[in-house]
C-alpha cells in the first residue's frame, strides 16, 4: 500500500517540465511598436518625397510600410521562438530565429532575479524577468510575462536560489 504513492511520485518527477511561452500580449505589444515606428517612418518619407509629386511620395511610403510588414513577419517568428522550462535543477531559456540560443542557468548560481516593466510593457500589463549570475555572459531573460506568472516565477526562482545556493 505504501509503495504505490512513491512510484507515482517517481513517475511524476521523471516527466519533463512543460515548455512555457511569453504571453500573447507580447505579440500585440510588438505589433503596436512596429506599427507606430513604421507608420511614422512612412509619414516622414512620404512627406519628404511628396514635394516632388504624389507618385514618388506614395511609393516611398509604400516601401516603408512594406519594410514594416517584413519586420512584423520577423518579429512574429522571434516572438514564437521564446520559451522557457523550469527543470528540477535549472532554468532553460530558448530564443532567437537567426541565432538560436539555448541557455541553462542552474538555480544555485542565480545571484539576483530582476523583474522590470518599461512604460510600453506597463501599458500591456507585462514584465520582463532577467536572471543574473556571476558570469556576465549568462543571459537568461524572459520578456512578456503576465503579472501573475511573473510573480510566481520570481518567487519560485528566489526560493529555489535560496535553497540551492552555491558559493563561488
Amino acid at each position, binding site marked *: 500500500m505504501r509503495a504505490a504513492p512513491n512510484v507515482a511520485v517517481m513517475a511524476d518527477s521523471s516527466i519533463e517540465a512543460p515548455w512555457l511561452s511569453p504571453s500573447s500580449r507580447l505579440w500585440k505589444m510588438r505589433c503596436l511598436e512596429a506599427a507606430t515606428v513604421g507608420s511614422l517612418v512612412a509619414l516622414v518619407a512620404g512627406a519628404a518625397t511628396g514635394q516632388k509629386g504624389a507618385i514618388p511620395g506614395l511609393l516611398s511610403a509604400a516601401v516603408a510600410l512594406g519594410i514594416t510588414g517584413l519586420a512584423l513577419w520577423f518579429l512574429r517568428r522571434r516572438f514564437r521562438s521564446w520559451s522557457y522550462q523550469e527543470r528540477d*535543477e*535549472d532554468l532553460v531559456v530558448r530564443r532567437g530565429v*537567426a*541565432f*538560436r*540560443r*539555448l*541557455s*541553462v*542557468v*542552474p538555480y*544555485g*548560481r542565480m*545571484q*539576483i532575479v530582476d523583474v522590470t516593466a518599461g512604460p510600453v510593457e506597463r501599458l500591456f500589463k507585462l514584465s520582463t524577468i532577467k536572471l*543574473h*549570475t*556571476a*558570469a*556576465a*555572459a*549568462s*543571459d*537568461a531573460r524572459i520578456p512578456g510575462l503576465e503579472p501573475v506568472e511573473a510573480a510566481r516565477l520570481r518567487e519560485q526562482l528566489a526560493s529555489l536560489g535560496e535553497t540551492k545556493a*552555491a*558559493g*563561488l
Partner: protein
Amino acid sequence: MRAGRIVPVLLIALVVSAGSHGHADNSARVYDLIAVVVVGVAGVVHWLVTKWALDGVTLRIESGLLRRDARQLPVARIQAVDVVRPFLARMFGLAELRIRLAGSSAANGRLAYLSDPVATDLRARLLAVHHGVDPATPEPAHQAVAKVPTGRLIGSVLLSGGIVFIPLVIAVVVLVQVSSTAAVVVGSVFLTYGIGFVQDVWHRISTQYGFTVAEAPDGIHISRGLLGTVAETIPIHRVQAVRLVEPLFWRLFRWCRLEVDVAGAVGREAGGGRSATSTKALLPVGSPEVARRLIATVIPYPQPQLSRPPPSARLKAPLSFHFLEAGHNDVLATAVTGRVRRTTTWVPLVKAQSLRRIEGPLQRRFGLATVHLDAAGKRVRAEFRDRSLEQADSLMVELASLSRSARQEEQRSRNLPSPGVAWDRPATSPTGAVAGGTAPAGWYGDPGGRHDVRYWDGVHWTAHIRDQGVAGTDSC
C-alpha cells in the same frame, strides 16, 4: 602617508608658482604654503589616530579623527593578506596591508602604513591564527616557481604592441623622401599613437617588473612592481578559470601568458549583487613548461582528452579550424580557440555558472553549433566551438549534469567538519623527499604518528603540532 603623496606635488606647484609670480604676488604664495601645511598635518593626524590590535580571533582597525571608523575583521574569514608598497612608502621603508575577507569587498580592511618588518610579521601572525595554529608559527616558506627576466618582459610587451609601429616607421621614412607634408601628417599620427603606446608599455613594465611566482600552502604568491611593489596571494579555491594566451608573435619565442580569473567578492550585498571578479596575470610571459606547472597547481584535476570539431567546420571556419579543440572530463572543461591569439581556457565544472548553446545561420547550414560553459566574470568561458549538432546536444546534457554533481560534491565536502583549510593540504609525508631537501615547508602528517599534523620548516621537523585543528607543541 596618504597625504605624503600630495605634499611633493604641492611643493612642486609652490616652487613653480613662486618662480612664475616672482616677487609680484606674495599673498598667493602664503595660501600655497597654508595648503601644504594643512595637507601635511592632516596626513600626520590620520597616521596618529589609526590604531590596530590583534586579539585572538579579530583584527581591529580604528581610524579617522572626526569620523571614527572602527573595523572588526574576523580572522577566520580572511581570504588573503596582500602587502602593498607604493613608491613613496617604499622609500621610507613602509608597507600597507590589505586584508581581503570572504564575502563583500566593502568589508575589506586596509592598514596603512606599517613599517616593513611589522607588516610582514603581522601578515604571518594573521595567517597563522587564520589556520588555527600558534600565532608565533612562522609563515611557511614559499617555493619559488618562476621569475620573469626583465629582458623577456620588455621584449614581450614590445612584441605585443610594438609590431604595429613597423609599417608606420617605414611609411614615415619613405614619405620623407617623397613629400614632406605627407610625412608630417603620418609623423603626427605616429606621435599620437606613440605617446599612448609608451604610456602603456611603461604601465605594463612598471607593474610587472620583477614578477615572481611562488607556491605556498595557502595559494599562489605573486610579487611584482618596479617603483611600488605588490605582494599578493591568490587563494586557489577562488580561481574561477585559467587562460593560456599565445599571441602570434610570441609563439616564435615559445612564450605564453597565463591569466586567472579570481572571484573577489561573492555577494548579493556587494556591488548591486554582481560578483566582482578580477583577471590577474599569473605569469605575464613565460615558457609553456612553467605555465603547465602553474596550471597543475591552480587546477589540480586530470586534464581532459581534447577533440576536434567535425570536418564540416572546416568550411565554416577555414582559418581557425586547425586550432579549434575542446574536451571535458568529470571535473574540468578545456577549450582552445583563436588563430592569431591562440587561447586555451580551463574551467573547472564546479565553477560553471551557466551553459549556453548558440546556433548561427551559417553554422546551421553546416549542421554545427557552439556550446559555451560560462564562468564568473566578463567573457570568461570554455567555448566548444563548431561542434556537430548531436555533440552539442549531448554536451548540453552532460555538462549540466556533471557540473551539478560537482557542485553537490563540493557542498557536501564543505559541510563536513574539517580541521584547518589549505594550510594542511599536502597531507602526504615529505620524508621521502628529505634526501633531496626539496619538500616545501608546511603542515604534513606527523612522522611519529602521535599527532594529526606537524610543521615541516623545509629542513627539519619542528615542535609545532596540531590535533583536530587545535595547535600545540611537542618535540619530536
